[in-house]
């Protein structure tokens, strides 16, 4: 039942990969704005970029750049690019005002625990 938390699998490499890249799975789930079940709680996009939830657009950009400098595969020779893909997804979502607003709503809603975990995009309609 662990995988019932939304679209994760629909957007993911196969399960084999998932076991290899647990972090990116969680990140993907978060990036898609999927409501999380308790046992698969992801870091929020803000946590990925290590910024406050009230961060300005500029702060987000600066954070993205400094994170890129630490986690881009060019500077982490030998390790894969999963960290960076996760950072990039977080940045893409948070740097787009509309996407950020949607995401904020989704995590707010998740905190209130008002929504089930049917997890399809039909849930858009109740936002």
């Amino acid at each position, binding site marked *: 039942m662990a995988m*019932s938390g939304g*679209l994760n699998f629909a*957007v993911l*490499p196969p399960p*084999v990969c998932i076991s290899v890249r647990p972090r990116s799975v969680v990140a993907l789930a978060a990036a898609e704005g999927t409501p999380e079940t308790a046992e698969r709680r992801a870091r929020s996009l803000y946590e990925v970029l290590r910024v406050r939830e009230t961060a300005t657009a500029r702060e987000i950009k600066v954070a993205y750049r400094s994170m890129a400098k630490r986690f881009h595969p060019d500077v982490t*020779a030998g390790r894969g690019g999963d960290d960076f893909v996760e950072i990039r997804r977080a940045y893409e979502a948070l740097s787009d005002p509309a996407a950020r607003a949607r995401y904020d709503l989704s995590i707010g809603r998740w905190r209130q625990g008002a929504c089930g975990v049917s997890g*399809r995009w039909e849930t858009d309609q109740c936002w």
Partner: protein
Amino acid sequence: MPLWVPVRSQVAPAACLSPSPEAPRALSLFSSSSVFPLPNSQCLVWRTDLLVISSFRMAEQPYMVASDSETTGDDKSQSAFHDLAIGIEVGTSKCSIAVWNGAQVELLRNTRKQKAMRSYVMFKDDTSTGEVPSGGASNKTAYEEKEILSGSAIFNMKRLIGRADTDPIVHASKNLPFVVQTLDIGVKPFIAALVNNVWRSTTPEEVLAIFLVELKTMAEVQLKRPIRNVVLTIPVSFNRFQQIRVERACTMAGLHVLRLMPEPTAVALLYAQQQQQQQQSLHGSMGSGCEKVALIFNMGAGYCDVATTATAGGVSQIKAMQGCTLGGEDILKNVLYHLLPNFDSLYSNRDMNKIRSMGLLRIAAQDAIHRLSTQSSVQINVDLGDGTKMQRVLHQSEFEEVNRNVFEICEKLIKLCLADSKLAAEDINDVILVGGCSRIPKIRSLVLGLCKKEKEYEGMDALEAAVTGAALEGAVASGITDPSGSLDMLTIQATPLSLGIRVHGGGFVPIIQRNTAIPARKSMIFTTTQDGQTEALIVVYEGEGKMVEENHLMGYFKVTAIPLAPKGTAEISVCMDIDAANTLRVFAGAMMLGTDRANSPFFEVRMPTLDDAHGWCAQALVKTHGSALDLTTIPKELQPQKVQ
């Protein structure tokens, strides 16, 4: 988080175990690190940050590269990095090598003291050297341009590599002195050089490999160490087939490609370094500073590239890239046909005298074009040797008129690139013009005009910027750090071409759009087109065309175990992943109905899986399977793409 990093020490584990006089100095490079000896020739470096030093060699055999400018510190030039990747730019016409020397990037020179070496391989049968072909980097013989154009040398490898014989560029290459034969069936063209009055066949990869071996040898002699890793610059418009061929040529030459870097992105990295140094000297801090947007226009002999980059704090993010096969060769061809409308007749029967005449005219036209960069008209006097003499004046206006199509394409590329990056001319801070053709007055005024700028960015050598950037990337990606922060930067690459799959009806659906940051991972859900369809073909293409036949077929595989369901209800997930080394992997599989769980193990396929004759494969697939295994898209609102 502390991190243990194994560091191989090839030459001198002794330097770790028993400090030699050099050891303390070398160690001081890593001021925030401690080095611990390990028995098996390895050291462990404990670092407080996460930057990894992949390897370094202790200073037992320091290589010294003579430098024009003063070095900023003794320590840096004393330490050698045995795995440090060098930067190579193999241009259509010229080529250069650069390397991070511990303090800055240094361009290597051949024995004739040239930094830019002519890209060609001479297949002349010489009794003194046997039948070993030699290229422009060779220190044996310096061939004159006349000899290079005699049919015995192959050049323009970069324009020919990875192209099929149906490609218009291959067809246009038929007026070169060596043989380019096409049979128009979508396979590798036949190319041949004249050796002992016989046309001997070769391939563009082989020619490039021979040339790379020479470059490698030259660099090894000068740097006094084996060279293995390289960062090679490529044109933006290179598709994955062309990239694979370049990689294959490198492998043949004993080189490992660490990165293939689109030329303007290499320039962007150099720009990021310059901007960072400028800001550090202004503010004395490592602050991220303000963002600067630059448009990079690069046009050499074979290709034209445009890119926009946003740079701050040493990080350059490529916003958009555009490129096409357009360069000095096309300009030269236009001028040749203008000077001699029946130019075709000179090479049709491959008469040796005609080839010689053609070579002479080519040299004269090339020289005229160069001179027109600074003069308003040039006098052309050339004796074609067969009794024909050409004496005429070529005016700049005439030159611009015959090359109008070239300028129009340049303009289109820049406009597309600006539109892709959602930038207006006013948003651009700097316009960077590089490549040999950027010296043509009309091209400079055209680019600056479109960007509404009075003058171009200064401080970059038009012919050395790309290779310098490649050497910087080589150092950064090899894990070299520099205490003064000169290597504290990064270019975040983007995919120049969209990647996607074929859907029912022959449409192309991109999964990774062009200009997506690399590494990238994107996925989409597709559905079946037949009731009870249990299998589906995933046919992967690269390109920008709306229909698949306009794009390049990368490969295909079949997804099986789709649950029985009416058409349009089963879900097939297709995920594409590009890693930092630009390797493309496609993951696909069917979902259990109404869930987000995989129905059976997914497939993972590294692309491309195809080689030549890809056009045939696509036709054969359609012929054999019709639309029985077709997929189609699902409505956008059902795609998991809400928050990207």
